[in-house]
């Protein structure tokens, strides 16, 4: 089946029961999207499909075929990191790094969705992404920084 990922067309042969997450990780060697629970509870597999954040573990690969998929590997422009990636480093918004891909994929969308106006909003709309290291205050700081740099675009 064809899968459009990070602007590139991939063709893979997959059983219909393969999740988008396993297709990325086990078949396409795109391991930036993480498997934390495989049950839709932790958010570490968050990717974008047609511009919306979705959980790749609860999405069948076949259902994502024909749609535009963006993963963490598609954010940076060569060595030029996305502002949210830079902010996560600067504000130390992660420790072990395992939830980080999902956090960043959600964080960018939270601003775009207009849900990053206050810390309470950020906390609420980022609560689908668990960080067991509990870097939450730093994640909020990184999001505030990108929001404010974007010039109140949200």
């Amino acid at each position: 089946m064809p899968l459009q990922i990070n602007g590139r067309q991939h063709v893979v042969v997959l059983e219909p029961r393969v999740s988008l997450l396993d297709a990325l990780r086990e078949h396409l060697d795109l391991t930036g999207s993480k498997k934390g629970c495989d049950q839709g509870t932790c958010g570490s597999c968050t990717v974008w499909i047609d511009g919306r954040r979705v959980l790749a573990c609860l999405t069948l690969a076949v259902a994502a075929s024909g749609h535009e998929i963006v993963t963490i590997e598609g954010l940076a422009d060569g060595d030029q990191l996305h502002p949210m990636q830079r902010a996560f480093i600067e504000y130390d918004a992660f420790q072990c790094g395992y939830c980080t891909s999902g956090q960043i994929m959600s964080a960018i969308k939270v601003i775009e969705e207009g849900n990053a106006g206050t810390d309470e909003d950020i906390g609420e709309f980022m609560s689908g992404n668990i960080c067991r290291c509990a870097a939450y205050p730093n994640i909020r700081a990184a999001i505030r920084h990108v929001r404010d740099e974007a010039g109140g675009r949200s």
Partner: protein
Amino acid sequence: MSAVGTPVTRVDGPAKVTGAARYSAEISLPGMTYLAVVGATVASGRVTAIEADAARAAEGVLAVLTPEELPKIAAEPHLLPSLVGGPAPGESFFPMQDDVVQYAGQPVALVIAEEYEQAHHAASLVRISYQPTKSITTIEEGREQAYEAQRLFGGLMPARSERGDVEAGLAGADVRVEVAYKMAANHHNPIEAPSTVATWDGGNLTLYESTQGIRATQQTVAQLLGLPIARVRVITRFVGGGFGGKAMVWPNVTLTAMAARYVGRPVKLMLTRPQMFTSNGHREEQEQRIAIGAARDGRLTAIRHEKLSITSPFDDWAEPATGVSSQLYGCENFLGVHRLIKGNTMTPTFTRGPGESLGVFTLETAMDELAYQLAIDPVELRVRNHTPVDPFGNPWSSDGLVECLRLGAERFGWSERNPAPRTTRDGEWLVGTGVAAAAYPIAFFMPPQRARARIFADGSAIVQTSTQEFGTGVLTMATQVGADALGVALREMEFQAGDSDLPNSTAAVGSAGAGMVSSAVHAAGTALREQLIALAVSDEQSPLHGAGPGSVKVADGHLTSAERPGAVDTYRELLSRNHLSDAEALGMWRPPPLDTPHGLLTFGAQFAEVAVDPELGLVRVRRLNGAFAPGRVLNPLLAHSQLMGGMLWGMSQALLEGNHMDPRYGRWAETNLAEYLVPVNADAPEVRVDFVDVDDELVGPLGAKGVGEIGQVGAAAAIANAVFHATGRRIRSLPMAPELVMDPAVGGR
């Protein structure tokens, strides 16, 4: 300029934010196969039949292994904490050696298939029949069988500690506080599941493993498989969180190696989230009681601290809970006791802030009650009971408790507090504040730690040791330490870890990682620097020829000496002149002896503000402030993060986390992240971390005492004390779930 002590951002940051960092299940090898583990559905009994024909016939299945097919292990595992530096099985038990079931979830069959989905589907087809026997999985079920433990931690520590006459001390006290708590079990739940990739090359085994101790993994697997240690290599690039759940070596690692040998191909195992609740230990369900006696002026006269908990059928395991209560305050009469019940669970294990975090919870909530009984400010009560020496009369290697309490109180605004409970409201919310002292022991059980430093002809350098990065920031910290020790710029220094072939570093547990790694790296960098200085002063062509080695300073790769004003040599020129393509040195750090005449605790103080909705029983933490004295802070940015994370773990321990056994089936009631609550972003308040500077010359050349646990210790007690201050009620169970906090007196209003 010194790199140590500066807030350098993580050297692995770019890899982690781009998804390039590879964790253990993300290694791809040609011919990879997938392992699914079938766990027992009963907690006690025997396997009477395994019907695996359907699974064997399923598409893509390479093998189904039952105890009949699985080879026997070469040696019985004996639990010993990984900090000791030897083999470190998490339990003195290995599954699938016979038909006995000791705990629910215990592996009883393995399925290996070409694809992940095929393995898990086939695993669902394996039919297992059991002859169950009655299980004990809760304290309530086993209370009558409780016994006093003799030794803890696989025999490493005595389970009883006693001095003076505690009963006389209590009887003679002006005031007494006696309290008891029930504490639910905790599960580590790192976001990365324990993962193993095993691959054999002839008789050599390579494991890609999510572990906090690659050397412990290497030695444990070698022992269980009867292999020379040299034939087992463990590689760990990144670990997605550990929190103690990856501190010991659990059976699934060796089972994966056995499966790979059986099918003759690489095998990958990634435990499922539900399996994580029965595969890598947990913090045991427990009850703690404490009795404190004090004189009218607040001075403690006696402490009796008892813990009762459930262990496995095969190990006397309890996280030690009385190590801090026995020494945090000056008190002549002390008794600490651990009682155990053998139950049908796997052996419990270290969970962040092991043992002492709940021990301190009990002590510090009791101290709060004592403060109310005596009408002494809780900060003042703790300051009054501070002791400059441990119970043996040895001075602390470094102190800071009083300074942490004072600084924390000032930053928190403690002096503005009205101590009377249930007096502050914010709309419908009752608001309260609380304080607790924090302390965590420093343990020197580890063998000597080594690192290798190497410099190349172009002036770039590398330091190596066999530690692993699981979020502590060790890659960054060790780069800073290595750069300073050798005397090169940070940009010239690489730090390499994550491979058991590198010089010895013991498992990073018990907040010992920073001390061990920084000491070994410092020793290696310093040894190489001294070697190069010796070369320079004996090199006739060096501008520093003949200078005293002790006079030579190195910074940014430039060597200078006060004896030769204006003269400069560089590492690059020195190596080039001497026709050296590189130079290297080994460094070793030997920990202080166990009987060092020093008290060994890391100190801190925790302050919390909570708001409680008494009708719904909701507790919202509004502020958490911590002040800590962890010795030298190697990187304040990373230390802040780790302490903050620990404090939020303490919040979670107070309010959210707890699992319970369903005694009908002997299985955990909560086995996913929807039911087992951990904090989400909206739960986490802003956190303030302050440091109190203390010099510590004992704990290592850099004086770092570690920040992994101390942030968590005391945080739950400060929150519980704040809940009392808000509501006037003491909640006697952890977590303080809404149904417990809900106030019957205001119901039906």
